[in-house]
C-alpha cells in the first residue's frame, strides 16, 4: 500500500489529454484478461458499456469540456450492486432466475456522474454471508499476493481486483467486516463509512439494520475522492440519513496534526496473532498513537452482531430456504436456516444491548478521534482452511 496513486496520475493524464479514457480502459481490460483466470475476481465484464462510457469521456475531453473528478477511471462493483440490464447475482445461483435490474444502483449512478467507467461485477460470498469468498457456484477468489490463499470476504472480488491491478477502484459492502477483511488480507485501502452516510438503494441486502456500502482503492487519497463522489442524500433509502456531502478529499492535506490517536488493547490484541499485533503496533508508532485504550464490551458486541445478522439474514431468505435450500451455498445454508429459527428473545435482547453499547462507543469517541486495531487477526489463510488457531484457541 502506498499513499501515492498511479490511478490519480491516470485521472490527471486523461484530464490533460495525455492519455485517452479508452486507452486506459483497454489497459485495464488487458490486465483482467491476463490475470483473472488465476485470481477469479470478476464474475462478469461489461465490455460494451465500459467502451461506451470511456468513449463518452473522450468526446467530452475533445470538445474542451471540464471533466468530472474521476473521469476515465475504470472501476468494478461487488455483484450485489444493480447494473441496468444485468441480473444482480449477490453471489448466488438462485438469483440467476431474477429479472435483470431496471436501473443502476444509486452509488453506481454517482460514480458514473463522477466520470468513472464501469468495467464489470465482482465475486463475493453468497448473499454476503461469509469472510472468505470461497464461492461454490463461481469458484474461490484467490489472493493476488499468494494464489493459494483467500482474498477475504464477503467482498473478496473487490479487494482482489484492486490488489491485482485490474482496476484502481471497486465497490463492496460491509455488514460485519466484509470490506475491512478483504482490504486487510489483500493489502489495499478500504472504507466502511459510518452507517447512514451512503445510500444502499439498488444493492441486494443481507442484514438491513447493519449493512453498509463503501469503496476499495489503491491509495488513501483516491479512497477519499471516491467517497466524495459516492455521498449524497437519498430520502428513498430508510437507512440513509445524509443531508449533505462532507468532502473528504479536500481535507487530506490536513494530515494527522491535532488528532487524538490511540491503540485498542484487550480483546483486539488478545485475539490477534503476533503478526497482526506487530502490524498495528508499527502503524501506532508511525501515527503517534501509542496510548492503549479499552474498547467497551467487544465480546458482547460480537455476540449481538452475530445474532442480529443470523436472524435478519435467515428471515430475509426464508421463502427460498423453504423451497430451494439445496441451491444455496453449501458453506452457509445451514447458518441461514439456524438464523431463521432463532428465538425472538435472542434477537430482541441483542437489539437492547446494541443501544447500551452504542452509547458507550459514542462516549469513547468524545476522547478519541482515531482508534487503531488489526482489521483481521491473522494473515490470509490458505483456501480450504476450516479452523484458525490464534493464541492457543480454535476459531471456526
Amino acid at each position, binding site marked *: 500500500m502506498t499513499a501515492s496513486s498511479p490511478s490519480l496520475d491516470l485521472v490527471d493524464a486523461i484530464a490533460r489529454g495525455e492519455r485517452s479514457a479508452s486507452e486506459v480502459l483497454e489497459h485495464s481490460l488487458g490486465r483482467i484478461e491476463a490475470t483473472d483466470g488465476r485470481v477469479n475476481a470478476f464474475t462478469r465484464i461489461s465490455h460494451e458499456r465500459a467502451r461506451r462510457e470511456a468513449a463518452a469521456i473522450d468526446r467530452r475531453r475533445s470538445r474542451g469540456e471540464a471533466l468530472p473528478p474521476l473521469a476515465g477511471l475504470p472501476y468494478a462493483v461487488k455483484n450485489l450492486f444493480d447494473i441496468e440490464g444485468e441480473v444482480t447475482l449477490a453471489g448466488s445461483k438462485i438469483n440467476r432466475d431474477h429479472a435483470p435490474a431496471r436501473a443502476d444502483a444509486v452509488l453506481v449512478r454517482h460514480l458514473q456522474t463522477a466520470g468513472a467507467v464501469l468495467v464489470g461485477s465482482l465475486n463475493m460470498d453468497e448473499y454476503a454471508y461469509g469472510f472468505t469468498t470461497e464461492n461454490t457456484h463461481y469458484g474461490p477468489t484467490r489472493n493476488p499476493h499468494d494464489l493459494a490463499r483467500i482474498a477475504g470476504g464477503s467482498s473478496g472480488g473487490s479487494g482482489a481486483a484492486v490488489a491485482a491491478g485490474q482496476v484502481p477502484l471497486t465497490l463492496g459492502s460491509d455488514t460485519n467486516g466484509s470490506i475491512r477483511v478483504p482490504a486487510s488480507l489483500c493489502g489495499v485501502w478500504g472504507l466502511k463509512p*459510518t*452507517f*447512514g*452516510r451512503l445510500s444502499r438503494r439498488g444493492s441486494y441486502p443481507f442484514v438491513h*439494520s447493519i449493512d453498509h456500502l463503501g469503496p476499495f482503492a489503491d491509495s488513501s487519497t483516491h479512497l477519499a475522492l471516491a467517497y466524495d463522489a459516492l455521498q449524497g442524500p437519498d430520502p428513498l433509502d*430508510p*437507512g440513509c*440519513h*445524509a*443531508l*449533505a456531502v*462532507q*468532502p473528504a478529499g*479536500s*481535507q487530506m492535506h*490536513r494530515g494527522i496534526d491535532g488528532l487524538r490517536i490511540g491503540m485498542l488493547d484487550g480483546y483486539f490484541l488478545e485475539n490477534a496473532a503476533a503478526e497482526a499485533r506487530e502490524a498495528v503496533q508499527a502503524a501506532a508508532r508511525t501515527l503517534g498513537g501509542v496510548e492503549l485504550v479499552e474498547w467497551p464490551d467487544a*465480546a*458482547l458486541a*460480537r*455476540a*449481538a452482531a*452475530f*445474532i442480529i445478522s*443470523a436472524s435478519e439474514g435467515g428471515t430475509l431468505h*426464508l421463502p427460498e*430456504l*423453504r423451497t430451494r*435450500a439445496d441451491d444455496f451455498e453449501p458453506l452457509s445454508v*445451514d*447458518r441461514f*436456516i*439456524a*438464523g*431463521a*429459527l*432463532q*428465538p425472538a428473545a*435472542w434477537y*430482541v*435482547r*441483542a*437489539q*437492547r*444491548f*446494541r*443501544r*447500551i453499547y*452504542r452509547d458507550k462507543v459514542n462516549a469513547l469517541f468524545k476522547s478519541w478521534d482515531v482508534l487503531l486495531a488489526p482489521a483481521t487477526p491473522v494473515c490470509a489463510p490458505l483456501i480450504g482452511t476450516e479452523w484458525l488457531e490464534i493464541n492457543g484457541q480454535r476459531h*471456526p
Partner: protein
Amino acid sequence: MDPAEVLNYVKATAVMLDLPLDVDRASRVASHMARTAALAGLLDALAIAVDDEPAELFRPAPFAPLEPGA
C-alpha cells in the same frame, strides 16, 4: 445445553415455519444453533434494565463544520 434438546428445538421450529429439514441438515443446523446459544448466553448474563429499549435505526451525528477556506 443438551444437544438432543437443541435438535428437538430445531425440528419443532422448522415445522412452525414450514421449513423442511432432512436428518443430516437438521443435525448441522442444530450445531450452529448450539454455537449461537452460547453467544446468546453472554447477553443473557448481562444486567439490562426494563427501560433499556431496543436500538432504533442508527442516525449518524451531523457533520462537524469544516475549517474556514476548506
